[in-house]
């Protein structure tokens, strides 16, 4: 059941029509928690994009060349989460050692990423949808960019909303969710272009 979509199609679909956040609801926790300021939102988005692209590639290889041949596919959750955690740890150490400037921008967000469900979600989607290697990497990269786009947009809107008179009880998470809903609604306009999964 190989999917026949080409990698660029999957890439664009992952950003717009099947946005990992607005259509699949993945990575919501950090999406709501870190979207107060535009700057940190962009930093987290970049870190997520990077880690997502790389872990999709690693997990693809691990799944198809280690777990499948040895009949261990049920262990994929444990293996995937370990790969993600180990990779994040490694990246953190490398950045800390070689690029303190980048560490200041991205470093604080890296530990958060391990528990970002978007990363694990992308890895699981790639297995469920039977992507090949190129498609998986395209999906991981596109998914990351889509997430970056969504969190940047929300952070921008939330910075403006701070001045708006909204009901007391709706402040904070409530209004953010409604804004996210409106964003999801507008992203649905793309859905005529391509559809995956």
């Amino acid at each position, binding site marked *: 059941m190989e999917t026949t979509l080409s990698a660029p199609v999957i890439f664009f679909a992952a950003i717009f029509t099947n946005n990992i956040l*607005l*259509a*699949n*609801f*993945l*990575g*919501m*926790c950090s999406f*709501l*928690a870190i979207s*107060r300021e535009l700057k940190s939102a962009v930093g987290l988005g970049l870190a997520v994009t990077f880690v997502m692209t790389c872990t999709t590639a690693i997990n693809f290889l691990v799944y198809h060349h280690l777990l499948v041949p040895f009949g261990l596919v*049920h*262990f*994929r*959750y*444990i293996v995937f*989460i*370990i790969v993600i*955690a180990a990779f994040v740890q490694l990246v953190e150490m490398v950045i800390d050692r070689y690029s303190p400037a980048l560490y200041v921008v991205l470093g604080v967000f890296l530990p958060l990423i*391990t*528990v*970002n*469900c978007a990363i*694990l*979600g992308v890895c*699981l*989607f790639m297995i*469920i949808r039977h992507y090949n290697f190129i498609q998986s990497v395209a999906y991981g990269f596109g998914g990351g960019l889509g997430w970056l786009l969504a969190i940047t947009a929300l952070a921008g809107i*939330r910075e403006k*909303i*701070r001045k708006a008179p909204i*009901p*007391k*009880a*709706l*402040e*904070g*998470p*409530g*209004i*953010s*969710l*409604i804004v*996210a*809903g*409106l964003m*999801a*609604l507008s992203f*649905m306009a793309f859905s005529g272009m391509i559809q995956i999964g």
Partner: protein
Amino acid sequence: MAADTAKSLFRKGVWGENPVFRQILGICSALAVTNLMTNTFIMGVSLIFVTAMSNATVSALRRITPGRIRMMVQVLIIASYVMIVDIVLKAYLPEISEALGPYVGLIITNCIIMGRCEGYARNNPVWLSFLDGIASGTGYALVLLVIAFVRELLGFGTVFGHPVMPSWWVPWTIMVMAPAGFFMLGLFIWVAYQFEKPEEKKAPR
């Protein structure tokens, strides 16, 4: 904290410290699976199981777990229980397992479980941790069921798959799609915060 009784734990888990609308945890799956009540119910039961069992396990191992690697240990414990849930669902409820797709696996990264392990089970005895897990899981499941009830009722005109709306009812397709999930949870939080006591007010947005 030591004086926690079963009753106080449940009161906290279901309302006072409800994971979904008080702490805004674990909402990824709260939105993704809530367009059908049956799926939501299975998801809720799975989550209660995983939270309770991993809370109990983390608590049982709390004296011998080195502090520095405890996060890793917790994730592994959670992942093991999620694996059990996944295999059981595949064996006995294949079509629901198909519909839930990756969201069963994503219970691992559901912050509720991690939050309870880290915030409660690490410092409390096994039995209370187990109850705390059930309480938090129940709080989560109840919120999800309420949201799923509205979405399924308006979106498909059914409840648990049984048609309940009159024949002239035109389903609101938008309710079963992504945006309505955000709207429903946003409205739910609004209503829930309306009942909140003023001194519990969170930091400004």
